[in-house]
């Protein structure tokens, strides 16, 4: 998460400069406090996946791919399909990323994004059951982070949602013996609402959205709020050692609703453009 370290002294100067600017309502890259960087979404880029999307949020680049398989349901939810969201920060994504199993940051990322999609009810998992208690569809959403420049949570979340919206799954039929027959036809994955996360960083007394790496390196606290269509909140996660006031949280909730709706339109447009 650290910003590019060129020189220790320069880094301190930039931080001081950033905090000074924020107090005046401005940011180093010229954005307003509540501006996102340009969001670019390309769907269906991996033909071998059932659904896929690449999201570029400024210089942050992530790819999500959906694979649909047949698996056994969890014993406590025999009447629900499986949804697994997994994100990896690839070692090629940043000088600070290491090869190996996901670290605590990557696991938090996967879980926060998973929670947003799951709790929104976007995918009705009860529609993915083939034989109750035995066979269900398992929806794997894997995310590869290609370039880290802050706000991985939102970039990953938009990629996952866009990939799910473009997912086509094979028609499956249960034969008499309980076997599964795969047909050559494909149907879209049924989804209802579009969950959209909005991530804020608190730096000093300022609350900004969509922090880049440099801003993340000095932020005191982070909060992600996910809304569904209509603006209700469905998931949230506060991060880092700093705290937030009651007013800041209420402001974030209100902003998440407005920004969420704007970004939802961007996602819809990207998905519609690939049919």
């Amino acid at each position: 998460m650290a910003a590019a370290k060129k020189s220790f002294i320069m880094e301190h100067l930039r931080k001081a400069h950033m905090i000074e600017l924020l107090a005046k309502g401005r940011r180093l890259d010229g954005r307003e406090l509540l501006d996102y960087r340009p969001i670019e979404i390309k769907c269906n880029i991996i033909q071998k996946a059932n659904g896929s999307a690449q999201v570029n949020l400024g210089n942050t680049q992530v790819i999500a791919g959906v694979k649909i398989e047949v698996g056994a349901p969890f014993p406590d939810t025999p009447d629900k399909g499986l949804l697994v969201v997994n994100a990896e920060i690839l070692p090629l994504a940043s000088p600070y990323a290491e090869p190996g199993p996901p670290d605590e940051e990557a696991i938090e990322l996967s879980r926060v994004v998973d929670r947003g999609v799951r709790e929104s009810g976007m995918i009705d998992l009860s529609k993915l059951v083939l034989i109750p208690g035995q066979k269900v569809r398992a929806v794997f959403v894997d995310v590869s982070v290609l370039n880290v420049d802050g706000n991985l949570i939102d970039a990953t979340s938009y990629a996952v949602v866009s990939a799910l919206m473009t997912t086509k799954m094979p028609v499956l039929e249960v034969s008499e013996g309980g076997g599964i027959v795969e047909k050559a036809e494909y149907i879209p994955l049924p989804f209802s609402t579009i969950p959209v996360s909005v991530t804020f960083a608190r730096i000093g007394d300022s609350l900004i959205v969509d922090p880049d790496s440099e801003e993340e390196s000095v932020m005191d606290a982070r909060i992600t709020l996910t809304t569904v269509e209509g603006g209700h909140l469905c998931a949230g996660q506060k991060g880092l050692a700093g705290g937030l006031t009651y007013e800041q949280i209420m402001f974030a909730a209100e902003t998440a609703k407005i920004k969420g709706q704007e970004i939802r339109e961007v996602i819809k447009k990207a998905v519609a453009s690939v049919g």
Partner: protein
Amino acid sequence: MGKLINNGIRLDGRRVDELRPYKLEVGVLKNADGSAYIELGKNKIIVAVYGPKEVHPKHIALPDRCVIRCRYHMSPFSTDVRKTPAPSRREIEISKVIREALEPTILVEEYPRTAIDIFLEVLQSDGGSRCAGITAAALALADAGISMCDLVVACAAGKVDGTMVLDLSDIEDKEGEADMPVAVMPNLGIITLLQLDGILTHEEFKQGIDLALEGCRRLHEAQRKALMDRYFKTAPNQEVE
């Protein structure tokens, strides 16, 4: 006639000595010191180079040269059936042969006590991903400004339905009789990777190498062009052959 080649035409419409469509691009990632992207058939591979940089853990550093580390990894959605994200034995072996294919060209003595990391991520796999990966990795190394005595370019040849063919696709690799990836330093003519899976006569072996080298020659042209596009765009008047 076999089922993979009919009247000299392969399942995907290619002749026996034809490459799949390809695309090469240099400088695709912001954070990396060098990066490149390749598409070859359905292969989509992105490569990043970091370094020369400090070595961790320190004890693997060498006093007279740099260490080269290489990781070939497939994204879980890159294959027909989802691949678990943890590295498989196959990926570990491929990482090693790719490293050894690239190492001969790097002037390692120029970077004592440092490390150069090469990361290859297969976003979508097809036959010949290690070769495509090597071709892109050499570009990423060049993009990172690493001293090299040549580029490296790789291409496979193999035997399908009794005929020697260039650049095997997924199905030809699985159903065919033999697959032989070859990497070469194109200007020096030194072969830096050779693997063979399957039975070939001596005559077929020679034919295979000749085919693979011809494929490498064509891909090397594309490598040069990709580097030109990245580094000479600002000088449109400059004549380059």
